[in-house]
């Protein structure tokens, strides 16, 4: 994980340095900053959304401080300072600082680029505190949603584009120094709002208390029809809808449904069928992969309990497998709108679906056995936490999950044409189904063998 963060930091660093030269080379006449400014509005919108999903300010950790001789003001300030230590606050600095240094070196030192830098950092920090408030208070969330909708409405139905205005504002900031007051005031405003909010929450029965939760998914009797397995399916569905982390992961899976748009809208890819296979695997198997790679980690919080219940591994695995297969069917049905891109595309997606249904699901389940990092179900994942389980062995599993389907398509395709490629995918899927029993036994044995190891790492 440390490696990944380092990788991204370096990437952003180079983005900062390289960005300058790239812009200067492409548009020698214009000022690079004026080229960037129009894009930044969108950046900040994405920034707030991403922070909303992945950044959390750990307010509950202050509980033990309450009865120590530390004033509440200090506690609040502590929380605010600590919230700055976040990957999301480092990105703009790591990107912009080298950019501005290079700018100063190449174009001569002048104040305006640094004022611009300061302004952007202030905006980014405001976004840090606003996203915290959006997360915690419904009212702020509604205000921001309203602002967003108004902005969108203006953009859509009138000639006023908020993003353009934002970019123009940044131009002003760059050209006329006193504009810096706006981001500074905004930052001050966001900090004092957060302070007031936090100050009010520092009681055990307020912000530090557990939230009352509504029971959702109480009635799932529909699943009782599957003797034995129904209960596991019910539990898994409840797991997904009742836990923050699970919802997060599964939502990522749902996003993959739209993955095809990325490929199919570009002529370049449309006539490269094996790229379509790749997209098809993600479209039909997005949920399957994101959910399946965390089996059995999903149940890590109570794995000891499961292990001494009358739950044969096979039944447990089968219910997970069926859920994954079911999701492939649902995603394949939901992918119907891709028909818009032509019957070929649709055929590839469905063939990839059959591959996932029979074979991909098995591989995913198998890869989970090697994933023994416990998962806290009802806590938001930190940035990169979802990649923490990333290991060499998971890398190896990418081959059968993503490369194999491309191969079983491409080889027959290269020799016998498009339809043969489809047949390759379908047959692999069917083979998976045919040998399901055998493969399940293999997976079961792996789980069985790794039982103690899994238990001990889950109980850490």
């Amino acid at each position, binding site marked *: 994980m440390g490696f990944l963060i380092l990788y991204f930091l370096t990437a952003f660093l180079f983005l900062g340095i390289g960005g300058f030269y790239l812009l200067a080379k492409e548009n020698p006449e214009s000022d690079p900053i004026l080229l960037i400014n129009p894009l930044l509005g969108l950046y900040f919108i994405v920034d707030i959304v991403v922070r909303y999903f992945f950044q959390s300010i750990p307010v509950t950790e202050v509980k033990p401080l309450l009865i120590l001789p530390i004033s509440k003001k200090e506690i609040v300030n502590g929380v605010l300072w600590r919230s700055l230590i976040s990957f999301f606050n480092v990105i703009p600095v790591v990107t912009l600082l080298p950019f501005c240094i290079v700018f100063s070196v190449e174009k001569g030192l002048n104040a305006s680029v640094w004022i611009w830098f300061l302004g952007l950092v202030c905006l980014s920090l405001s976004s840090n505190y606003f996203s915290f408030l959006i997360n915690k208070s419904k009212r702020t969330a509604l205000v921001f949603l309203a602002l967003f909708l108004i902005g969108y409405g203006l953009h859509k139905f009138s000639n006023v584009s908020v993003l353009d205005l934002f970019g123009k504002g940044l131009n002003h900031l760059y050209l006329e120094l006193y504009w810096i007051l706006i981001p500074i005031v905004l930052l001050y405003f966001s900090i004092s709002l957060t302070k007031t909010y936090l100050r009010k929450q520092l009681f055990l029965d307020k912000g530090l208390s*557990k939230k*009352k*939760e509504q*029971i959702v998914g*109480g009635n799932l009797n529909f699943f009782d029809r599957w003797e*034995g397995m129904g*209960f596991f399916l*019910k*539990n898994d569905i*409840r*797991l997904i809808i*009742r*836990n923050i982390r699970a919802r997060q992961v599964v939502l990522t899976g749902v996003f993959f449904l739209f993955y095809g748009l990325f490929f199919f809208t570009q002529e370049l890819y449309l006539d490269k069928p094996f790229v379509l296979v790749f997209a098809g695997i993600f479209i039909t198997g997005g949920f399957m992969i994101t959910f399946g790679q965390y089996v059995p980690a999903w149940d890590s*919080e*109570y794995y*000891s*309990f499961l*292990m*001494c*219940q*009358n*739950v*044969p591994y096979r039944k447990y695995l089968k219910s997970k497998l069926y859920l994954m297969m079911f999701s492939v069917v649902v995603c394949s049905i939901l992918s119907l709108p891709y028909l818009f891109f032509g019957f070929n595309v649709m055929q590839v997606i469905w063939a990839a679906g059959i591959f996932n249904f029979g074979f991909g699901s098995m591989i995913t389940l198998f890869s989970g056995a090697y994933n023994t990092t416990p998962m806290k*179900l*009802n806590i938001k994942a930190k940035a990169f936490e979802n990649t923490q389980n990333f290991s060499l062995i998971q890398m190896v599993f990418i081959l059968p999950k993503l490369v194999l389907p491309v191969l079983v398509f491409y080889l027959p395709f290269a020799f016998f044409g498009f339809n043969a490629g489809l047949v390759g995918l379908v047959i692999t899927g069917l083979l998976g189904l045919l040998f399901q029993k055998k493969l399940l036994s293999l997976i079961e044995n792996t789980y069985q063998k790794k039982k*103690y190891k899994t*238990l*001990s790492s889950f*109980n850490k």
Partner: protein
Amino acid sequence: MSHMIRVENLSKKYAGQLVLDVPELQIPAGQRFGLVGNNGAGKTTLFSLILDLIEASSGSVFSKEIDVQKSEAWKPYTAAFIDESYLIGYLTVEEYYAFLANLRGVTKEEIESWTQGFESFFNGEVLNQKKYLRNFSKGNQKKAGIVGTLIGKPDLVVLDEPFSNLDPTTQIRLKNLIREEAEKNGTTFLISSHDLTHVTEVCDRIVLLEKGVIVKDIETTPETLKELESYFSN
């Protein structure tokens, strides 16, 4: 009397350090077996070995003569509540019980009427709360978990520290509950506790562990509590 649990040359080492060494231990069916000892004495380790949750460094545990490491056939008649991780936090109590009932072959109707019988033990704080188990207080989680172990009348029930976190009324009710279940169904109870009074009151036999070794193994008599207290005060 047949043995519910038979332990043979059992030992557990962590990084070369011996944390449990029990050459021999037999627990007859129907016994209420109490395990006492200070922190780190090996109580939870012993229970975890009996439940096959950790791998023994040597020796075996036999549950009704089934080697727990080699077969899963002991699972249908065994139930345990060691800590809150034995609950499924995102379920309601009713859903959790329905799940357990399903695993142990009890019908939906049976389980509903059966849980009603525990209303006084629950003191109105467990059933119909419209709350997930993770949002229960520690004490109510414990109540829910302990009753959960009794679903389907298992032959062997393992409870770790069942009295802690319970209010006094519930502690007394729990003692009665354990006695009743043992008498009515012949359930074998393995109970570990730091509370010497409760454990001597409810168990017919007390085993005292220290540094992984059994140092006392006594049938409970009116003098047992004194004996244990004098041992621990030294």
